[in-house]
Structure formats: C-alpha cells, structure tokens
C-alpha cells in the first residue's frame, strides 16, 4: 500500500474531499499544519520585537490506498487543489508496509477498504 500525503490550501478541503468521494476514496485523515514554500512571507513587529510570518496555514491530508491507486489519488487531489497560484502545496507518496483496522484486527489492503 501507499500513503499519499498532500499539503493543500485549507479552503480547498471540501473540493478535494468531494472529488475523492466521487471515485470511491472515502477514508482519510487530515490535520492543520503551517507551511513555507515559495510564497511571499510577511514580516512585521509587535511591541518592539520583530516577527515574521513565513509559515502560512495549510491542511495536510493522509490517505492510505492500494499501490495501484496511489497515482490516481494523487491526480485527483492535484486537480482539485490547484488554483495555479503559488502556495497550492505538494503531494508526496510513501510506501506503507502494513495496515491494520483497529476494530477488527484485519490486515493489509482489507484494512483500508
């Protein structure tokens, strides 16, 4: 199996979820992250100290799927999450050796069906 990690703009989560659902990818895990990429950063001061915001709010999605589905999932995300502007984010694919469904103890691809 593969884990598809995607860092996206938070406002596009609904869009991405909907696109994934349409092709039957339902299970996923998301969390808030902050990211730095090529985007402009903001710097300013408060009460005498210098601050810089170069970390902007993003969302990270993790989806585990069977090997052969990983590229399709990545494509779906890429097209749903792209606005063409800097800061759209990245997708990474990594290898997963084992998956277990906690409820039943099922293992392997069964666990993420």
């Amino acid at each position, binding site marked *: 199996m593969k884990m598809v990690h995607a860092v996206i*703009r*938070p*406002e*596009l*989560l*609904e*869009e991405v979820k909907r696109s994934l659902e349409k092709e039957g990818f339902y299970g996923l895990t998301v969390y808030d992250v902050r990211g730095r990429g090529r985007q402009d950063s*903001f*710097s*300013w001061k*408060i009460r005498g100290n210098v*601050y810089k*915001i170069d970390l*902007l*709010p993003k969302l990270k999605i993790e989806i585990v799927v069977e090997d052969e589905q990983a590229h399709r999932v990545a494509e779906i995300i890429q097209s749903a999450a792209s*606005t063409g*502007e800097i*800061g759209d984010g990245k997708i990474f694919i990594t290898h997963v050796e084992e998956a277990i469904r906690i409820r039943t103890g099922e293992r392997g691809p069964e666990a993420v069906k």
Partner: protein
Amino acid sequence: MVDAGDTAWVLVSAALVMLMTPGLGFFYAGLSRRKNVVAVLMQCFIAVATISVIWALWGYSLAFGPSRGGFIGGLEWFGLAGVGGEPNPDYAATIPHSTYMLFQAMFAIITPALIVGAFAERVRFGPFLLFLVLWSTLVYAPIAHWVWGVGGWLRSLGALDFAGGTVVHISSGVSALVAAMVIGRRIGYGSFAMEPSSPTLVILGAGLLWFGWFGFNGGSALASGGLASNAFMVTHLAASAAALAWMVAGWIHKGKPSSIGAASGAVAGLVAITPASGFVGPQAALVIGGLAGILCYAGVNLRALLGVDDSLDVWGVHGVGGTWGAIATGIFADASINPAGANGLLLGNPSLLGVQLIGVAATWAYAGLMTFIIVKLVDRLVGLRVKPMEEMIGLDITQHGEYVVV
C-alpha cells in the same frame, strides 16, 4: 437638576453599551473563519476608537445640535463645546449633558460596527476606516437627527423609536445588504464550507450583547425608575422568546438545535424589541420576540437563497428585526406604559402604524442609497477589496500581520 440616581443609571448604561461593540466583535469573530478572526475583532475595536473621536468632533453636533430644517444638526457643538455637567433639558433634564452625549456616543459606535458583518473577510483595513468615517457622518448622524434630534422631522411626525430600532438597526441592516451586494461575494462562497471558527466566541459575544442591551434599552429611559425597568424587562423577555423561537425553527428545519442559532435568535429578539421597549409590556414582548426569532430566521434563509453574501447576516438579523420592531411598535404600543408614547393599532390607533411605516421607508431608502454611493466612492478612490491571494491567506495575516495561535 442633576439627579444622582438617574445619572448613575445612565452612566452605567453607557458603559454597558460600550461593551457591546467588543461583544459584537466576539460574536462576529466566532462566526468568521479562523483566518479572519483578528480582522473582524480589529474592525469592531477600532470602530470604538474612531467613531468616538469623530463623535466628539462633529458627530454629536450634527446629530443633536440645533436643527437645520429637521434634517441635520448644526456644528455649534463642534468639539463638544458647551457639552458639560449641566443637563440639557431638551434631551434629558436630570442627567448631565455630557452623560447624554456619552450614552448617544455608544449608539453611534455600534451602528457602523454592525455593518462589519456584511463584508467581513474581504475588505482592506484602510479603506474600511474611510467607509466608517463617511458612513457615520453621512448616514448615521442625519438619521439620528431625524428620529431623536429636537426638531428632527420624524420625531416631529410622532414616529416612536425608543432605543434605536430605526436609527441603529434598520440603518445598519439595510446598509449591510447594499454593501454586500456592491462588494460581492467571498471567493468560494457557495462552494467551500465556510466554517464558523468558534461557537464559544459566538456565545461570549451574544452574552455580552444581551448584557449590554439592558443599558441600550433600559438606559434609553434616560432616568432610573419604572420606565427603565419596563424597558429592561421587555428586552429580556423578547430576547428569550426569540432565542427559543429561532432555535426551534432551525431544529425543525435542519435537524439540530444549534448554539449559533440560539445566539442569533437572542440578538434578533433584542433588535426587534429595541424600538418598542419603552412602549410595550411583557406579554407583547413575548410575542414580538417570538415572531422576531422566526422572521429573522426566515430572513437569513431568504438571503441565502438570493445568493447575496451578507457574510454574517446583518440584514437578516438587524434589517429584518429592526423593521419588524418598528412595525410592532405601531401595533402594540400602549400609552399607559409610557405617557410620552402613544397607543398602537391594537389599542385602536392605526395612525401610529402609518407613521412608523414612513420612518421605516425613509430609513431604508436613505441608508440604502447613501451606502451605495459611499461604498462605490471608497472603492473608486482607494479600492475596498483585498487581492484574491490575500483573501485566500486570510485578513489576519495580510492586513494585520497577526494570527490566532490558540
């Protein structure tokens, strides 16, 4: 002669009304997306500072100074010249003139702050300040003069607005609708989920608004005693009935009783009772509040159907609620509660309702038109809307360089 008890009550009321604007900030911040929480809070907070200064300079004089033809006050009281510790018996005979001015200042502050909800999450801060100053001067001050100023044409006509249903709520609600239409929808409106950042902040805001509203309406008696107590009582009952009504409407309609619904309902009830609070009793208050909850709930849903992105539903709550309150005053007013008032439709006096409708119509027309002109003007001059990329990142970081960690 200054009465210590009356002055204590109106000073406290002024403090309570002042707290409403930060309260409104929390209410609106909780309804906004997380990335715009600071921006909304800041717009409300800075409204306090900005309007206070212009109110002292020219606003109070334009609204309450010697009338120029019933339309606007003169600049005789510029910089609060002559506004001191002695009462001005034209407005309130037992409290210092400065107390009356302060109490009115707090109304002048919250009114434009209410409009913030209409174009939340998408306007630049500098141009917003310009809008604030223009709107307060060109819309608020004249309407306040019409309704409350000695010689104001609506006051002379006999229109009743105990605590600002027309002056505060209709004017801001209608302006909100117009501003939202002119400025346009947020990016992704209708396609992204736009999740309220925090029901906790919404409840905090609603709690502070409710608390402050006792001063808003109760203080409008401009004295301590039976009338203030009546206004306080009906305010509380209308808010309660409306909170329940909106909650139940949403529960039936959408399956869950939401805290944001209950809070919005409370505000709707507070809005609707505002003009009536010195003229009706508790039974009428329950009816006015209950209907306010349902009407405003419908207003919000109607607004959504129309596709107008009045982001935090200022029109649905303040426009609809304020209009209903002005009409309800014409229906339920009871001169036995306040001899300075009049009887309404139910007590056999349909003419009051007519006068109330004139007031409503005039305010809708004037506030709507002027807001259209002001928004267009500010947009032409300095550009009101942020860049799309800034809107995506959020106003907190892009406008203020701040963000919410916790």
